[in-house]
């Protein structure tokens, strides 16, 4: 059997199966369970990398579940009952992010949540969350996207409330649940609207026949708004700090890539599903406006926070703004002559920023978790002088902070540079706002660095445990690789993803 052929299904099924096996192994011994989970996430990562590079070399993988020939679809005239997975470069790109962050988070969690009971459930939910993310990114039809969206949000809600002795955690989880549930219901409603007209659920098949009627417009508005809310863009970002801050740190890192899965869905809908008709809409301008608002409001709110994870959560809103700005410029310029000159560069910047953000934001959340693990507080006012005792954590924090602020050798700078230039070409104001936001980001991380790590030694604490350091080191290593070889990464990984997103015909032609 050709393993590459079955890879899309395997990548989703493996964490799902592991998730259900974990509680059984948990009954045997804890060590076995930890080893099992780590083995699974590492295998998943390796498989994902192999598969992704297979995809990046110009293939589109299609997998029809339950069919005797999985790569072949049923004919278009037949009812599209079967579940179809379709993986193009963009999906594979998102898949790499999810798998990497999940690997780091799973390794990090070994000692991070050791003291609390019900750890088997923790890993079950984490693996289900991973399966949900990958499923959402790999699926080729809209309804499956809804199902995986719900799987993702249910498991992540349960994980946010994992420390349920903390009132804030439960409250954040409640808010996230209500918000994501309503978003998902409206997504389902718009799927119903689309289905009622075309009798199709497959994204590729739909994108060929979509004709932009009134109902399509309603569906577009609902889909874009819902996914934007799930991605946490201003002014629907309120759940982000509430949900991110009380969750266990490894889960917060996962949540970052979960919101990016929603962002992927947003891009997929606006680029591919409505790719044929998108010139007739203002959706690109809408994304740019959302991006600008997200960047500015996110960063200014972050500046005045004193809870370290809330601060970082607001930064993640602000970074989402960069992605929306970059990809929004691409969408705005799509089908114009400027697209091939700088529109595609903006999109590359936005997409490159997705992987950058997942890595350094994940790393920063993990360092915040390490601080919380030792000090049992998230309040910046009660910290200080940690650089004396937590040397590696400090190092990782510096790497993450410099990367997020866009200080030159790091990857954040590369992606921001791409966005700045293209944005300047569209309108100088966009670029200036982006730069101001970048400066404010640096400023707020200087604040964190100063108040948490600098100063005299106040607390007698030890360095974070080894597994946590390994988890952080993985992400830091990825950041450094991304920083040193930005050209290579953009050429090999990001550009295929951007082109896959920009050309809906390729995706639609895959079916």
């Amino acid at each position, binding site marked *: 059997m050709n393993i590459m052929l079955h890879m899309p299904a395997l990548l989703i*099924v493996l964490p799902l*199966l592991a998730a259900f096996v974990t509680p059984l192994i948990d009954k045997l011994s804890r060590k076995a369970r930890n080893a099992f989970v780590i083995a699974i996430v590492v295998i998943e990562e390796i498989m994902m990398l192999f598969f992704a590079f297979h995809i990046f070399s110009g293939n589109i993988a299609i997998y029809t579940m*339950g069919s*005797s020939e*999985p790569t072949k679809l049923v004919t278009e005239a037949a009812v599209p009952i079967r*579940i179809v997975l379709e993986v193009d470069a963009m999906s594979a790109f998102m898949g790499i992010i999810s798998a990497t962050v999940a690997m780091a988070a799973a390794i990090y969690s070994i000692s991070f949540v050791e003291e609390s009971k019900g750890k088997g459930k923790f890993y079950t939910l984490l693996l289900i969350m991973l399966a949900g993310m990958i499923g959402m990114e790999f699926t080729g039809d809209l309804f499956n996207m809804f199902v995986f969206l719900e799987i993702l949000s249910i498991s992540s809600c349960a994980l946010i409330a994992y420390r349920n002795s903390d009132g804030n955690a439960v409250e954040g989880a409640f808010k996230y649940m209500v918000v994501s549930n309503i978003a998902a219901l409206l997504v389902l409603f718009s799927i119903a609207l689309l289905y009622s007209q075309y009798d199709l659920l497959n994204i590729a098949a739909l994108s060929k026949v979509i004709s932009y009627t009134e109902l399509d417009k309603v569906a577009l508005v609902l889909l874009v708004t819902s996914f934007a809310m799930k991605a946490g863009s201003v002014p629907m970002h309120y759940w982000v700090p509430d949900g991110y801050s009380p969750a266990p740190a490894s889960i917060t890192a996962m949540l970052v890539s979960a919101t990016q899965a929603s962002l992927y869905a947003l891009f997929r809908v606006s680029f591919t599903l409505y790719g044929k008709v998108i010139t007739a809409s203002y959706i690109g301008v809408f994304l740019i406006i959302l991006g600008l608002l997200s960047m500015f409001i996110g960063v200014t709110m972050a500046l005045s926070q004193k809870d370290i994870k809330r601060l970082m959560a607001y930064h993640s809103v602000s970074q989402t703004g960069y992605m929306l700005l970059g990809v929004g410029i691409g969408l705005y310029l799509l089908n114009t002559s400027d697209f091939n000159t700088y529109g595609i560069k903006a999109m590359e910047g936005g997409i490159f920023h997705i992987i950058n953000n997942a890595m350094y934001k994940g790393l920063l959340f993990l360092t915040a978790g390490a601080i919380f693990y030792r000090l049992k507080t998230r309040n910046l006012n009660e910290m200080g002088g940690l650089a004396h005792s937590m040397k590696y954590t400090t190092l990782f924090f510096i790497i993450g902070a410099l990367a997020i602020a866009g200080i030159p050798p790091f990857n954040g700078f590369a992606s921001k540079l791409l966005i700045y230039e293209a944005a300047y070409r569209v309108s100088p104001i966009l670029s200036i706002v982006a730069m101001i936001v970048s400066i404010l980001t640096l400023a707020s991380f200087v604040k964190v660095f100063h108040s948490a790590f600098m100063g005299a030694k106040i607390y007698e604490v030890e360095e974070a445990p080894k597994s946590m350091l390994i988890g952080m080191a993985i992400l830091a290593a990825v950041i450094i690789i991304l920083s040193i070889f930005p050209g290579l990464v953009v050429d090999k990984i990001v550009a295929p993803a951007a082109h896959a997103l920009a050309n809906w015909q390729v995706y639609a032609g895959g079916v």
Partner: protein
Amino acid sequence: MSIVVRTIASSIFPMALIFSFYVIMHGHLTPGGGFQGGAIAASAVVMLLAAHGYKRMESKLSMDGLSFVESTGAIIFVVVGLAGLIAGVSFMYNLLVGSPIFGYVPHGANGGYLNSGGILPILNLAVGLKVIAGLSSVVLAMILFTEGEE
């Protein structure tokens, strides 16, 4: 609750259970399937809980056992799916078509033969197990929470 309610609940329980099995097993023939049947059986469990009170049911229902059943159901489901993949066809491929057990799959309308679904009855059963255990344990967990508070 009073004797009357308790007695009736106890007598209805096997009826609801067998009806739920009927719905689960005939999922590919009549309306119903794994989820519906599972919901019925879970409702029957809730009925017992309501009629007898948690205190009397405590020794009979355990969270551990339920979660074991739940995991088993899910694993069966995934493994049956994977079997098709390992056989080299595709995930969730209906392997049993044409085989003597569950094999005979006529095309179009039939009079409702039980063994005409291929792997569908197995999948339905797996989903049923999962749903029974899952929904019961949801209600049980919420009741436990209430109990723990007072």
